[in-house]
């Protein structure tokens, strides 16, 4: 465990890709602390030093040096440096460098008021066809039930399982309103917007169970729209998949 100072109280980072975010947060906060400490000491000194009881007559000219300009330029430069060195590359990695489907665990997560549904392909690794025209009361995701993959696929509500140290590729969408998929210990967040399907990726680095929370107001149950991601070993993961996928011999379904 790093010291509180080094983590700023952020939840322990259990992901492989989250370091960039943490470094940036830390770097910006150091900048902030330094600036604030400098300014506030100057500020308190001035309030004390130039109290009217000490300086009955004000100085018309005040400060003549232009040190502040250098300071302002410096702040701008540091911000620019952070931007170029940390912020932009991290974001580029986040949204541009997607792992291929082959090397990752692929899950489709569909948000709904007020629940997370993870749609797994099952033992054969193929997703069933889905189309809005199939949507009905008993088929919210619009699965094509005549597709052979239908039997393999299953849905895990709220509690998901993924293997450790392997990228997880999530296709995120929503049935009704905007939600936001946020798992802070895994340093990942992305809005789930109805009508659009976004990919997002993260790589767990530690076994354990992590909470997912909904980070976008989505109605009366928003505060309780909780889920978990359980990170397990690859073997346990395969076992779990087999257990759940009907055509793979498991319990199956989960959507009816």
């Amino acid at each position, binding site marked *: 465990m790093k010291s509180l100072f080094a983590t700023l109280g952020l939840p322990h980072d259990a992901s492989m890709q989250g370091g960039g975010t943490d470094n940036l947060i830390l770097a910006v906060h150091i900048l902030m602390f330094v600036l604030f400490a400098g300014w506030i000491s100057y500020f308190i000194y001035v309030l004390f030093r130039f109290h009217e009881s000490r300086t009955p007559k004000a100085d018309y000219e005040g400060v003549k040096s232009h040190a502040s300009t250098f300071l302002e330029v410096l702040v701008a430069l540091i911000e620019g440096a952070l931007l170029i060195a940390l912020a932009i590359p991290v974001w580029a990695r986040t949204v541009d460098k997607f792992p291929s489907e082959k090397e990752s665990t692929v899950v489709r997560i569909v948000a709904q008021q007020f629940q997370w549904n993870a749609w797994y392909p099952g033992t054969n690794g193929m997703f069933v066809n889905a189309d809005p025209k199939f949507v009905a009361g008993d088929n919210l995701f619009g699965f094509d039930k005549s597709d052979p993959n239908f039997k393999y696929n299953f849905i895990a509500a709220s509690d998901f399982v993924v293997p450790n140290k392997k990228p997880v590729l999530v296709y995120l969408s929503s049935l009704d309103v905007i939600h936001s998929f946020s798992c802070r210990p895994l340093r990942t967040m992305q809005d789930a917007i109805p009508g659009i*399907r976004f*990919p*997002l990726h993260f790589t767990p680095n530690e076994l354990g169970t992590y909470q997912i929370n909904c980070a976008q107001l989505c109605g009366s149950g928003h505060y309780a729209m909780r889920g978990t991601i359980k990170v397990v070993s690859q073997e346990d993961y395969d076992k779990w998949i087999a257990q759940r996928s009907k055509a793979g011999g498991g319990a199956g379904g989960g959507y009816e």
Partner: protein
Amino acid sequence: MNNPSNEEDSKAVKKHVQQHVMIAVGLALGTIMTVWTSQTNFGSFALNVTITLGIAAAQAFMVAAFFMHLLSEKKLIYCFLIFTAIFFVVMMGITLWSRMPENIIHYKQYVP
């Protein structure tokens, strides 16, 4: 300029009236032309749009320039209108730009 009973002014205004009528006729012709261009196929829809909206923009310019006498207006007003135009372009431009497929995370690759 605000004193209405001025001989020279009155001539100028009369000239203006004539000019305005001409412009109105021009505008009406422009309208007929847009109808015509929109029904003619210039090869591509984009070209059609450009031509039709081009005429509309020209008409709007005439209205602003002459009916709203913007041509002889003060600098200050130009200044404001330029600012407005900039912000309008920014609003429209960036909003549209951000919704271009290549600017939405991996839009092309992953659409169902």
